[in-house]
């Protein structure tokens, strides 16, 4: 019998292509016997077009998918099945070639076992490119297109039997269609044809593709009749379809397992998306998982249909699945093609200079040499002490407890959040877990090298000449703020200055790439944790970046979040206590810091001493003002080149850098105005050196841009810059060798050895440390165990404005035992569990010490003359007495008081950690995903192979 063909034309908003399709249908060499058109509630007049186009039966549907339309058409317009009836399903964009139907029928007539035949689907906008020619399943059930986006050169014309086909242009026998129940309603767009074909296979029929029959399609099935969607929407629909099929195809026993695994798998795949730099795919992943788990009632009906129709086992289709090696190879080929496309398409991605040929290694080596020279006096000691440094605890466990715990050891045991800096200390200490204090010495020695490396990478993005980044890196490695921070032991500033160029580079890269954004967020958190005084200028710079690039604003919002999350617990606690600005206090051991005049700050001198040049001039017998002039002259090349930068070509890079330098200067001035940390005999201001590092980096970028633009005339200015920077640093290079250097190698003990030994037996042994100050007052501190190290230093404690009750009780005790009198210290000693008294040496030298000598003598005489204390001896840490009062029991540390700030701060801290983890995942540079996000621009004239999918265009 002659087969009868009923063509079902499904239209949705397809007015543009409908006429062509109708013409093509009329031009068929073997026309279909019946034509039924379905209009899926189009609103562009497709229904009218269909009617005008002479279609006999037009079904007006209220909406639905491709399969719904087909089912409705059959039910309403072609309800009578005829013998040997075939259904030909076409979309409004099909436009089949004249002999398409003839070829299809020819193929099915010679093979009676074939129930479903699929044509070769071509792209409407590129009729020689195959859009789809057969589909299959992978071993785990993911749908794989056998052919996708390939130029048709008849290379696939040998294919015949396949596992699945696209729904567009499908020719299916009516009785098989009825037996299988048509398309699965749970698969509205993606995988609809694949699913029908698979079920047909399992029912014992064959599915083939016919190369000679060609139809077209203008969009993927997910976008049928809709505006083209984002790749994320497509990914979500594909995943939804895959999960639906998984639940339908799985054996009944495995079904609960599959259902339970939906959410954990979504989580794992989200992590994979983050690593592949597709963070916006994460919501879709979870949406698909939730819908599949809870919002998919069609699974039951689909399973019933499958069970009814299934005749063969699943193993019968195994030979048609795609084997793993082939799948991997296919995916690798796809990735390479994608990267090649992007690399060819991005004109801005000029290959930067390489590390070795570009002098990067030289800069690193010079930086390492400088670091070793500067930090050499610290080698050999157990720890570096002095300035802002203290020894670390003996084990990483204690470091982490201090970093993540709530009860602080500093001061007199204040309940509050630890600094985010303590986490950095814990990380450093864990790196050299056998002796945590060693990591600080290593960091100080390696800091110039790190700084040189990061400056080199930053300047490489500014200049294309090979010697400019190397020169700039060396200049930055000997820059005054960095050396000053090493000499004064300001560990936070050292870390911040070494990482600052990297942060700026990542921020620039974050406009185009997710990796850059993640790296900028992570580095921003580390820099702000190390030196909170940089938070305001960096925030202002971020704001400027967002305003300059409003298109990327949504993405850039993520950048400061980890940094804010790191500071949040401390900020909340400080705000609730009434000292909000104290969150910007420098971490580490507090040092006396004073405000510095503006013009000295403009010369990048953080302590006003102009890098030691006036002192050197005086040593050699000249006046100090000669030293000032020398310092100005040596700093001038950097300053002048930086100011010159915006005048020369390339101002787009140098002007923002100069503005960044001005921002750093303003922040340095502001730092001197904020005196919030209690130290010795007064309050200390914030150290301006970190902000001055920003000044130096900004000037350096501008200077590099200027040198780049000067071309051949850059040799002399460049040489002047290099020589100026090196000579300027000479007095500071020997800073740690002089006898009155702040930082020196120490023995790793904070308290006398007797106390340290006692702390091994009694972990919480209390020691009252009295330090005479130059103004005749005594600083009294209660320390537990071996004393508090750098990990216990807390800005929350030193920025306390009012003395607490506990503080006052301790002050009462200290004042009385430092004086001869009738006071009985026993009750208070028992209350605090104090076993030892240490009278530290006076915290000053020379004539400043006179003020403290009186109170020191008084305290010593009083302690000597008291029957409650017996002197043990003197040590490096001071004179030591032991209390002879009995009943002293240090016990365990008092429990942290549940203050409101502590309750609020704890979940904030956890949130901050989560944000940090997200940033870290984003920042890991992988080759899994697309390496960068392209700004959307017109790319029609690009290579024809570019598709709009696979993560290149994002909304």
């Amino acid at each position, binding site marked *: 019998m002659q087969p009868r063909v009923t063509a079902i034309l499904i239209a949705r908003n397809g007015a543009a292509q409908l006429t062509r399709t109708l013409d093509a249908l009329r031009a068929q060499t073997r026309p279909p016997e019946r034509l039924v058109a379905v209009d899926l509630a189009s609103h562009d007049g497709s229904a009218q077009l269909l009617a005008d186009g002479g279609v006999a039966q037009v079904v007006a549907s209220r909406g639905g998918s491709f399969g719904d339309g087909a089912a409705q058409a059959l039910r309403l317009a072609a309800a009578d099945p005829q013998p040997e009836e075939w259904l030909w399903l076409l979309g409004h964009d099909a436009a089949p070639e004249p002999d398409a139907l003839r070829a299809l029928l020819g193929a099915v007539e010679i093979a009676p076992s074939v129930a479903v035949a699929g044509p070769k689907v071509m792209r409407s906008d590129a009729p020689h490119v195959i859009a789809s020619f057969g589909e299959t399943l992978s071993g785990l059930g993911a749908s794989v297109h056998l052919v996708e986006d390939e130029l048709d050169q008849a290379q696939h014309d040998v294919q015949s039997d396949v596992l699945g086909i696209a729904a567009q242009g499908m020719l299916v026998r009516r009785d098989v269609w009825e037996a299988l129940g048509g398309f699965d309603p749970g698969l509205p767009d993606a995988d609809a044809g694949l699913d029908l074909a698979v079920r047909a296979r399992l029912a014992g029929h064959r599915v083939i593709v016919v190369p000679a029959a060609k139809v077209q399609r203008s969009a993927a099935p997910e976008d049928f009749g809709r505006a083209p969607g984002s790749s994320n929407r497509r990914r979500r629909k594909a995943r939804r379809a895959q999960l639906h099929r998984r639940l339908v195809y799985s054996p009944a026993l495995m079904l609960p397992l599959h259902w339970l695994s939906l959410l954990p798998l979504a989580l794992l795949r989200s992590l994979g998306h983050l690593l592949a730099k597709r963070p916006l795919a994460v919501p879709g992943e979870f949406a698909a998982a939730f819908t599949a788990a809870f919002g998919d009632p069609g699974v039951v009906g689909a399973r019933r249909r499958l069970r009814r129709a299934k005749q063969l086992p699943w193993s019968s289709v195994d030979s048609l699945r795609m084997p793993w090696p082939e799948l991997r190879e296919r995916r690798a080929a796809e990735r390479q093609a994608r990267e090649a496309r992007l690399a060819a398409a991005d004109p801005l991605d000029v290959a930067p200079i390489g590390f070795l040929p570009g002098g990067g290694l030289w800069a690193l080596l010079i930086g390492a040499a400088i670091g070793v020279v500067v930090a050499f006096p610290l080698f050999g000691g157990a720890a570096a002490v002095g300035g802002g440094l203290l020894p670390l605890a003996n084990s990483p466990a204690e470091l982490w407890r201090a970093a993540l715990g709530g009860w602080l050891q500093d001061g007199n045991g204040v309940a509050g959040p630890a600094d985010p800096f303590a986490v950095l200390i814990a990380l450093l200490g864990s790196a050299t877990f056998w002796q945590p204090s060693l990591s600080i010495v290593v960091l100080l020695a390696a800091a110039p090298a790190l700084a040189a490396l990061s400056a080199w990478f930053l300047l490489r993005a500014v200049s294309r000449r090979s010697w400019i980044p190397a020169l700039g890196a060396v200049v930055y490695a000997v820059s005054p703020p960095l050396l000053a921070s090493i000499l004064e032991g300001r560990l936070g500033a050292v870390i911040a200055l070494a990482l600052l160029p990297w942060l700026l580079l990542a921020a620039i890269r974050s406009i185009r790439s997710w990796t850059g954004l993640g790296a900028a967020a992570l580095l921003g958190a580390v820099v702000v944790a190390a030196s909170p005084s940089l938070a305001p200028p960096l925030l202002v710079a971020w704001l400027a970046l967002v305003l300059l690039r409003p298109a990327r604003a949504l993405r850039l919002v993520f950048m400061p979040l980890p940094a804010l999350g790191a500071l949040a617990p401390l900020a909340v606690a400080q705000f609730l206590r009434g*000292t909000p*600005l*104290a969150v910007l206090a420098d971490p580490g051991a507090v040092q006396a810091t004073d405000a510095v*005049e*503006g*013009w000295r*700050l*403009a010369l990048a001198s953080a302590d006003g001493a102009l890098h030691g040049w006036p002192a050197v001039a005086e040593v050699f017998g000249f006046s100090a003002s000669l030293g000032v002039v020398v310092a100005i002259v040596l700093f001038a090349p950097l300053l002048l080149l930086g*100011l010159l*930068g*915006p*005048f*020369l*070509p390339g*101002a787009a890079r140098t*002007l923002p850098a*100069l*503005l960044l*330098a*001005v921002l750093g*200067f303003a922040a340095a*001035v502001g730092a001197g*105005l*904020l*005196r*919030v*940390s*209690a130290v010795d*005999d*007064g*309050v200390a201001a914030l150290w301006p050196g970190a902000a001055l590092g920003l000044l130096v980096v900004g000037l350096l970028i501008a200077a590099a841009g200027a040198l780049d633009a000067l071309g051949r005339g850059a040799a002399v200015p460049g040489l002047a810059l290099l020589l100026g920077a090196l000579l300027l640093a000479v007095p500071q290079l020997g800073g740690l060798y002089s006898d009155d250097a702040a930082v020196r190698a120490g023995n790793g003990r904070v308290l006398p050895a007797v106390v340290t030994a006692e702390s091994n037996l009694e972990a919480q042994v209390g020691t009252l440390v009295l330090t005479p*100050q130059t103004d005749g*007052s*005594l*600083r*009294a*501190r209660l320390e537990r165990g071996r004393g508090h190290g750098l990990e216990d230093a807390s800005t929350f404690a030193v*920025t306390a*404005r009012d*003395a607490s009750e506990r*503080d*006052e009780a*301790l*002050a*009462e005790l*200290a*004042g*009385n035992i*430092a*004086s*001869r*009198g*009738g*006071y009985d210290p026993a009750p208070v000693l028992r209350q605090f569990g104090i076993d030892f008294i240490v009278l530290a040496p006076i915290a000053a030298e020379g004539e400043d010490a006179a003020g403290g000598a009186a109170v020191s003598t*008084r305290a010593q*005489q009083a302690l*000597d*003359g008291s*029957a409650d204390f017996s*002197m043990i001896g003197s040590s490096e840490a001071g004179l030591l007495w032991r209390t002879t009062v009995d009943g002293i029991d240090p016990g365990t540390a008092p429990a942290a008081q549940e203050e409101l700030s502590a309750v609020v701060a704890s979940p904030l801290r956890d949130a901050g950690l989560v944000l940090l983890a997200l940033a870290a995942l984003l920042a890991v540079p992988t080759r899994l995903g697309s390496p960068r996000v392209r700004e959307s621009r017109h790319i029609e004239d690009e290579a024809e192979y570019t598709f709009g999918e696979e993560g290149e265009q994002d909304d």
Partner: protein
Amino acid sequence: MTEPTAARRTRIRSVARIGGRIVGGLAGLGLAGAAVLGSTLPLPTVVGSADPVTVVPEAADLLQVCAGPLLLAGGGETASTASPVGSEVVTRDVIGGDESSQRPPSSGGLASGGSAGLVLRLPVDGDDSSLGAAQSQTAGSADLAGFAAADCIEPGNDQWLLGGSTITGRSSLLVLSNPDEVDAVVDLDILAETGAVNVAGMDGIVIGAGTQQVLPLAAFAPGAEALAVHVTSRGGQIAASLQQSTVRVLEAGGADITQTGSAPATEQIVTGLRIAGGERVQERSGEADWADLAAVVRVVVPGELPANVAIEVLPAGGSSDRAEPAVEAEVQPGEAADLVLPGLVDGTYALRISADQPIVAAARSAVLAEDGATDFAWLAASAALGDDTVVVVPEGPSPQLTLANPDEIERLVRVDGEERTVPAGGSLPIAVDGGASLRLEGAEGLRAGVSFVSGTQIAAFPVEAPAPVAGTVRIRP
């Protein structure tokens, strides 16, 4: 001639680009300059207060440690123990409660059964508590005869005692009393007229808590004509006194107890030096073994450099300008130098000893009766008084309180309510009752001394300055 439009457009574009760069560069320059200038303006500062907590320590008990009875060296069981001769009379003045008194046990140097100096203790009760005491004793045995009076003092950590010698017939005993609950470790620096004495055993002498020890200086520095002792203690505080007695051949020639005066300074005032029978004393002091009758000022320079010392008299009538220095000399450091005072008319004197280096000073005077009975007295320099002072005058012959005013303006003082004027640059001797106490008000910065003299007896001591009460101390938590 018109240029092609495209070329003109490129030219305009490049001009605009250069212009934009110039504007941008100038803007950057201007911003940088404005920032530097702006930093010179006065800007608001945020200061977190870090005020220290002021702690007023609880006051200790008031202590007065008396020197004890006159001791005869070698009078005990062994040659190194001393035994008391007679007993002293203690006059005390107590306000604000009941004092407790005890005689501490001896931890060395005292014969068994001998009594140590009295220790008076008064718990502080409010601001009005005060405790004062003084002792005096007349000894008349064959081995020890003379009159000695001494104030009861508060213990301290650093004391200079000038006086005595250890030549034949002269004995000097150092009495160290530790009233604290903690052992005191004492270091002695002994200076003779030839320089410092370096003998083992002078450092690390332990005086047990609540005990008294007697140390004969002859054990450390025998044969020294002039002695000065610097007593420093660690741990408990010490009240030190130096007892001297003289025996010429077989006759006792006087006894004296002297204690610490004012701390080393460039100006010292010796207040209340009594000269009586000065011509006879001067005549006799020329004979051998009677040289230590002469009125001298003993000066010690504790530092490293020699000092030029000038001694002037602050006469009772006062003087508007500085008088001619009676004595001028250069004293080497580390020596006990005796500067002889020129012939002084009988009377009561205040001496100002000034130098260009910090010094300690004390003066000695003697009386000689016609029958040869003699007594001497060492008077240490007085420290500046506070505003309200209680002066306790023990029993003794013709007691006198002398006030000295080293300032340029005259001072009005109330002595027991009576207004007295102390002339500028002069002194004022006031006759007082023995065995009683009196109140000095308004005498801040003045010096005072109590002295006794008769035909055969002489003694004097400076009025003790109030001990520096443990003042407030500021603690930074």
